[in-house]
């Protein structure tokens, strides 16, 4: 056995030994009882008011549901003491400025990014459309789309939600809200400059790293300022127990600056080594930045809107550490069959498949938390978006594991199938979760309800419908494209011609998504300007009907 293979096997076995040790120590309770620690974050009166999982059939026990919705369906809020309510308000107010800046920026970039994406999509089947100007060419609009989505919409949404979440979870007002706000402004400057640089032909040329380093500097500084604010809050926290969302957020904030710095060291990277670095970065932006933020939000909003605790602390821990360990090494699977050392590819394939462990752990945890309460999906916008996002996280991850296998990758590599997969992750999972989170956060930060439930419905059906069309269409087209390319007896143009109808379908899906985003952005703008109808109580996707067993409706009403 060669040196590389031996090293690889040894590393792999060692890491697994570590994991097994971790599992064993957990089963022996070396990490302590989480429940005792968990109670710290609750006000004295709140404990014991959530559901009892020992109840025989939680879905049909009307009595139990009445307990679960402890205030009944009358809209009376008798249990929260004025002091506790004040406390909650205080926490939300502490983070208001940076949260609003981030969410407003997110909405702006979402619209810009969608328009870029739609234009790029149409250009693939109408190639002579908008060709006279250099900045409108496909090769500039497409990276502008990716960067506007990644660093504009997704990062801003994630940061905004985290800035709101951490004070809540730590029961500590946000430290240095102004610093964080300055950070958000710097981040905006970085994204604007970077996207501008791409459109004017100053791309640095690496996927996910197109921004010239000059614009990575404000990104780095902005991210650091927001990170410092959050980490200072962490240091001053009023609770001892770290809820699982905190783990994800804090780790993500540690990882992102490291990623940015290593990837942008000037003059160091070369040729194939740079390609390996490129995909180490490209996949870690997803795995160590967006995914932790998205999972942090899922871990908060599902139990929050359902009023149930997370199923298992141990599962949360396993999910977190295995995700971090395995996900950070999967980048090489973007270069399967490429001119990169074979051991690197093998390592990345193995770790990609290992991703099944954290996905199963997170999946079981969320499933067991939400099960029996899916009826609330009919009412709560937050829950509907977040639960769907969580399902698509599982789907995207399993698909990703399969796609990294050589036999599958040979077909899907270099095709639109990969593009569809990327959208399942960053859109189906991350963006959906962020939509749900923003529907929850904004009313609390602004003390203003969403004015039109109808707009939320439109938003939901446009993006979910559009995305379904997008994903299914492009996946089929990409697979056929890959099969055509693998058949040496078919001319290359076959692989182009076969995708054309699917590219058209994708544009229709993308157009619906873009329209949905416009609806969403208009609604956010109304919120920020306090326009539209003044509402009492939550904006729900449908009106709860007060029936004896309609308690699930009320569960939704709480979103």
């Amino acid at each position, binding site marked *: 056995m060669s040196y590389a293979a031996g090293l690889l096997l040894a590393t792999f076995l060692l890491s697994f030994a570590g994991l097994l040790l971790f599992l064993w120590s957990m089963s022996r309770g070396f990490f302590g009882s989480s429940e005792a620690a968990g109670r710290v974050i609750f006000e004295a009166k709140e404990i014991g008011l959530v559901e009892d999982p020992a109840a025989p059939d939680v879905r049909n026990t009307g009595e139990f549901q009445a307990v679960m919705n402890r205030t009944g369906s009358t809209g009376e809020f008798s249990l929260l003491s004025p002091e506790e309510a004040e406390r909650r308000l205080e926490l939300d107010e502490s983070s208001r400025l940076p949260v609003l800046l981030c969410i407003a920026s997110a909405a702006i970039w979402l619209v810009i990014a969608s328009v870029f994406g739609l234009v790029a999509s149409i250009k693939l089947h109408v190639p002579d459309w908008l060709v006279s100007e250099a900045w409108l060419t496909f090769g500039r609009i497409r990276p502008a789309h990716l960067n506007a989505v990644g660093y504009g919409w997704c990062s801003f949404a994630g940061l905004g939600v985290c800035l709101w979440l951490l004070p809540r979870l730590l029961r500590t007002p946000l430290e240095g809200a102004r610093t964080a706000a300055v950070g958000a402004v710097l981040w905006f400057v970085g994204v604007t400059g970077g996207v501008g640089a791409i459109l004017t032909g100053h791309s640095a040329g690496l996927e996910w790293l197109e921004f010239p380093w000059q614009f990575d500097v404000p990104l780095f500084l902005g991210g650091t300022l927001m990170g410092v604010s959050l980490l200072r809050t962490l240091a001053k926290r009023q609770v001892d127990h770290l809820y699982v969302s905190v783990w994800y957020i804090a780790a993500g904030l540690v990882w992102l600056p490291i990623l940015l710095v290593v990837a942008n060291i000037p003059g160091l990277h070369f040729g194939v080594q740079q390609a390996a670095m490129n995909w180490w970065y490209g996949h870690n932006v997803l795995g160590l930045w967006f995914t932790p933020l998205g999972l942090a939000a899922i871990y908060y909003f599902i139990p929050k809107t359902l009023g149930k*605790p997370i199923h298992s602390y141990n599962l949360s821990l396993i999910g977190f550490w295995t995700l971090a360990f395995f996900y950070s090494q999967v980048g090489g699977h973007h270069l399967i069959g490429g001119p990169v050392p*074979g051991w690197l590819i093998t390592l990345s394939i193995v770790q990609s498949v290992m991703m099944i462990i954290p996905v199963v752990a997170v999946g079981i945890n969320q499933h067991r938390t939400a099960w029996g309460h899916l009826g609330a999906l009919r009412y709560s916008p937050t829950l509907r978006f977040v639960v769907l996002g969580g399902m698509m996280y599982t789907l995207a991850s399993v698909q990703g594991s399969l796609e990294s296998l050589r036999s599958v990758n040979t077909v899907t590599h270099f095709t639109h199938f990969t593009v569809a997969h990327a959208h399942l992750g960053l859109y189906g999972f991350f963006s959906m979760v962020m939509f749900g989170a923003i529907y929850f956060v904004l009313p609390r930060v602004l003390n203003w309800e969403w004015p039109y439930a109808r707009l939320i419905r439109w938003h939901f059906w446009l993006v979910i419908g559009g995305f379904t069309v997008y994903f299914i269409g492009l996946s089929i087209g990409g697979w056929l494209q890959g099969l055509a390319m693998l058949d040496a007896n078919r001319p290359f143009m076959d692989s182009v011609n076969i995708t054309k109808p699917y590219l058209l379908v994708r544009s229709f899906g993308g157009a619906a998504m873009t329209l949905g985003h416009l609806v969403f952005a208009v609604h956010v703008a109304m919120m920020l300007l306090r326009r539209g109808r003044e509402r009492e109580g*939550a904006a729900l996707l449908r009106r709860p009907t007060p029936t004896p067993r309609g308690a699930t409706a009320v569960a939704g009403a709480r979103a």
Partner: protein
Amino acid sequence: MTRLKQRPHLREFDDPEERDRPLPRLLLFLVPFMMLWGGYYIATMDTTADPTLGDGRTRTALMPAVGGGAANGAQLFTTKCAACHQSAGQGVAGVFPPLAASEWVTGSERVLVQILLHGIQGEITVKGVRYNGLMPPWKSLTDEEIAAIATHIRSQWGNGASPVTAATVAAEREATASRSAPWKGESELSALK
């Protein structure tokens, strides 16, 4: 505080907590299983591969081509010629001359081989239409490859001319070995006939 009653904060559930539960069996079975699979995958990878050559490289593919192998005329045509002369040999009107029913393709095999070897820069009339372009030389191809291409285009799209042998190509290559510039259009080519 009068508005407090209406605040969205007040209809919230508690901030979530985590329960203490034993790990699900599924996971306890899954982890060792995955471990076995990963170990197996790594242990069975190609350990003779040289990491400085890339992923899954076949060493012979990286060595100089060995002469004498059978060349695939259709495949060579698709990769080297079809971009200009099009896959059906019809050319592009006014820009690239057709090969289908072209007198230059089905005529003298010597002239055809010379065109393939050195290319053309200048005017040429094909099927009564004048073209003035530049065809690049293909003398970097082997004799077998040029013979295969010539044979292929002489037998496709209704063309019915005789095959060209590698020996003919070798002889033609030898005869014009000193030439470095493309043929200057049909005036020079006609003199070859």
